[in-house]
């Protein structure tokens, strides 16, 4: 099954179960969704539940908040995370805060889905995902789906939750193949150990998990050690338990993210390790992130900005050697 098909199936199942679940966004209906995630849903559930909106992100999220206040369980689709900036007032000031400001009188059972990240030569205004900003907002739950199984289960759980969830997808993952374990009762808040190892912990999320996995063989051969790869899955709250036990085991931490380095999401992970696990560490933590420039259009320049499997392997090996591995 493809990643986008898993998302589609999750939405489809939840819509079939509960008529309060509606989906709204630009081109989600007749067009079938910009990345075909909502394909076929309008034929099944009609235009009252699969709602084509104008290109007005503030209203897509703002209306979803109002629908949730009125008792529906809306899923808002933002075409790309870059456009979510137009909705940030609604996401931060309304979606995240209404429950708290009303002392729990307002419940917002809603999900805002958005793909982001560097795809291929989409240039500066179509290549970001803002996980650092979205995860810094108390009141929001932020999930990041890097694989097919998690995408399916976590989206279903997100739709079932009585809290507002930001569901991050990645544009290059939509056609990724994978299996769904339908019998699993997945905890979407729990980080996923993608590969076990005891020499280095590499923490990542979204598409970078795949890039890390591609680099792992070279790193293990080069440094003669084994690597544990952790997919964070839930960016807020963070599963510190899984992180701690891995870092305690390996004593070495690398964080790989597509985010820009300054103020980037990975800083929170390194900060946690430095504050809480300083004496468990055998080496200074390493962050591999995008360079601090807007994403350029030219392919050569674009690849220079973001982490790639080759660059990840090279940097981790240099760091390993510097630190006595």
């Amino acid at each position, binding site marked *: 099954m493809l990643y986008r098909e898993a998302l589609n199936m999750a939405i489809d199942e939840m819509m079939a179960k509960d008529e309060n679940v*509606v989906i709204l966004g630009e081109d989600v209906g007749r067009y079938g969704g910009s990345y075909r995630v909502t394909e076929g849903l309008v034929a099944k559930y009609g235009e*009252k539940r699969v*709602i084509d*909106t*104008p290109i*007005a992100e*503030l*209203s897509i*999220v*703002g*209306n*979803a*908040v*109002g*629908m*949730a*206040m*009125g*008792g*529906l369980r*809306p899923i808002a689709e933002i075409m790309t995370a870059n456009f979510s900036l137009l909705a940030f*007032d*609604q996401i931060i*000031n*309304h979606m995240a805060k*209404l*429950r*708290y*400001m*009303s*002392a*729990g*009188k*307002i*419940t917002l059972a809603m999900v805002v889905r958005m793909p982001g990240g560097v795809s291929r030569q989409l240039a500066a205004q179509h290549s970001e995902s803002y996980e650092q900003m979205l995860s810094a907002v*108390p*009141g929001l*739950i932020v999930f990041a789906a890097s694989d097919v199984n998690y995408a399916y289960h976590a989206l279903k759980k997100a739709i079932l*939750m*009585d*809290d507002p969830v930001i569901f991050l997808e990645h544009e290059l993952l939509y056609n990724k193949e994978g299996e769904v374990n339908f019998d699993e009762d997945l905890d979407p*808040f729990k980080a996923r150990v993608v590969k076990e190892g005891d020499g280095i912990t590499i923490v990542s999320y979204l598409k970078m998990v795949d890039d890390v996995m591609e680099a792992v063989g070279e790193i293990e051969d080069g440094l003669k050690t084994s690597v544990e790869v952790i997919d964070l899955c839930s960016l807020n*709250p963070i599963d510190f338990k899984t992180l701690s036990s891995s870092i305690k085991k390996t004593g070495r931490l690398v964080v790989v993210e597509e985010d820009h380095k300054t103020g980037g999401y990975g800083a929170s992970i390194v900060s946690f390790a430095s504050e809480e696990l300083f004496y468990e560490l055998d080496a200074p933590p390493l962050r591999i992130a995008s360079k601090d420039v807007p994403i350029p259009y030219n392919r050569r320049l674009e690849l220079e900005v973001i982490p790639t499997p080759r660059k990840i392997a090279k940097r981790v090996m240099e760091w390993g050697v510097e630190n006595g591995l």
Partner: protein
Amino acid sequence: MNKLLAEEIYYYMVLGREFEYAAKEHYMKGNISGFLHLDIGQEALSVASMKAFDKGDVFTTYREHVMAIARGMDPKVVMAELFGKVTGVSRGKGGSMHLFDPSRFFYGGDAIVGGQIPNAVGCAYARRYQGKEDGVMVVFGDGATNGGAFFESLNIASAWKLPIIFLCENNRYAIGTEITRVSPFLEQSRKAKPYMPSFVIDGMDALEVYEAVSKAKEHVLNGHGPIFIEAMTCRYEGHSMSDAGDYRSPQEMRICKEKDPVKRLEKTLLDRFSSQETLLESLRNRAVKAVEEAVEFAANSEEPDLSELYRDLFCKECGNVVS
């Protein structure tokens, strides 16, 4: 409009005004902090609109104490919220600008200018979807009509023929900036004209507000889509307690106060409805007493415990995971 209802509106207007004077007093005494936006001068609009639109969902701004009380919220829990006490309607975590009571279909209490309008539009969508007929009313000031949220909402409400009343309180000032300096015209309903029926009313006249909102409600309930009311009004105080409001001349304020909505309704009650002066006096006394009790309740209530800090951030099952 019958006599009994007019008298009820009068009572809530006096109650609202007394409440706001008490809030002002306790702000100056230091019992209330932060931003406090008083509704004095606009009571006809706040009370009569709520009484006319008595069943549907209401979304409004941070200048909402009087509306909340007119909607049936106890002045005690409203005042306690202003005092930041745990007995407040939002347990002291919302404050003056964030009063909510979904059991009375009152959805705040929003302090982002124009931010509540898209929420109201979404709720109107939900109500039609659920087959509930009462519709939604969204209240906002003239200042909100210059922002994108407002225009997006007019467009969507109109495109989807949603059951929603847009009620614009035009008091002519966006904090200290007179509307005609930042908008090409004084009457903001002109912006709604291409999208929906719209009309201008005298927001200082409680009976006119009541009739207009009743008419608008009928329009919405009959499935005719959105409608826009612009009520011209006047706030006597500054934008908030931190604004003296001295950008308006004494002459302008004098003209304003000549239209005082409370006195005006009082005169109508005596002249047109033959209300008894003794009854009106007892209503005034009742209002004063209710406010005294509200202040006493707020003053004697407890501060929120520090354990309140993480409460209500997430629903229970998620909250457990998060903490």
